[in-house]
C-alpha cells in the first residue's frame, strides 16, 4: 500500500520541482480542460515547451490526455497531489515524534552531567 504511494510522491515532487511546470499545472487548474496551444497562449513559453512539460506531468500521473478530433485535451488529476500531501503529513508527524524523543534523550543526559 505504501510502496506505490512513495514512488508516486517521488515522481509528483520531481515533476513539480520545475517552476515552469508548476505554472502549467496552475493554468490547467484554472482552465479545466485545455489544449497545448491554449496553454501556450497563457504562458510565456512555446507550444513545444508546453508539450514537453505536459509529457512530464503525464509521466507523474498528474495530467490525463484525451484525443478529441484533431486535438489533444489535457486535464489535471488531483489524486497524486493529494497523496503527496498525505505523505508529507504522515512523515511530518513521524519526525515530530522522533524529535521529541531526541530532545528528551539529550536533555536527560545533559542534566545528569551538570
Amino acid at each position: 500500500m505504501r510502496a506505490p504511494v512513495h514512488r508516486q510522491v517521488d515522481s509528483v515532487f520531481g515533476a513539480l520541482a520545475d517552476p515552469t511546470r508548476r505554472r502549467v499545472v496552475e493554468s490547467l487548474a484554472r482552465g479545466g480542460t485545455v489544449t497545448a496551444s491554449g496553454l501556450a497562449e497563457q504562458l510565456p513559453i512555446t507550444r513545444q515547451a508546453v508539450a514537453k512539460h505536459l509529457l512530464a506531468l503525464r509521466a507523474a500521473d498528474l495530467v490525463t490526455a484525451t484525443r478529441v478530433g484533431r486535438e489533444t485535451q489535457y486535464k489535471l488529476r488531483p489524486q497524486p497531489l493529494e497523496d503527496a500531501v498525505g505523505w508529507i503529513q504522515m512523515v511530518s508527524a513521524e519526525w515530530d515524534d522522533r524529535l521529541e524523543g531526541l530532545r528528551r534523550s539529550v536533555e536527560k543526559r545533559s542534566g545528569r552531567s551538570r
Partner: protein
Amino acid sequence: MKLRDEAAPQQADEKAPWVERETLVEASPDEVWEALTDEDRLEEWLAPDVELDPVEGGEIAVRDGEEERFGRVETVEEAERFAFTWSRPGEGESFVEFTIEGLPGGSRVTVVETPTHSAAAGPSAIAAGSWGPALARLRRSMFLVFA
C-alpha cells in the same frame, strides 16, 4: 529555563513540499551530535535496533519491530550536519538531513526528509524555497476545480 524561538515558527504542513521539522534542545550541539551519530544513543529515540557506521558512505540500518529501513551515510560534519538516505525494502528512497545550530542556552535541530528523485530533480528549486507555498497554492486551485 524555557528555550523558545518565536521568530522562526515551523512551517505549516501544507506549505512544506518535502518534510522539514525542527526542535529546540537545551543542550550543546556536541551533545545533540552524540545522540544523532552514536548507535546506542540512536536506540534511545529513533528505533529499538539501530546499526550505524557514522562515516560518509557507511551503512545505516534501522529496525523497529517489523519495520526495517536501510541506507547509506551521505554527510558527516561534526556537530553541524548529518545526512543519510534510507528506504524500506522495495520502496522509494528518501534523503534525511539533520542540521544543528548552536543557540544561547541550547541548539536548534532541523530535520529534512525528501524523496531522493525530487531532490535530484532540483536542489536549487528546493533551496530557493519557492515551491512550498506553490504546492499549497496548486492544491487550493485544484480543490477549486474539483470540489
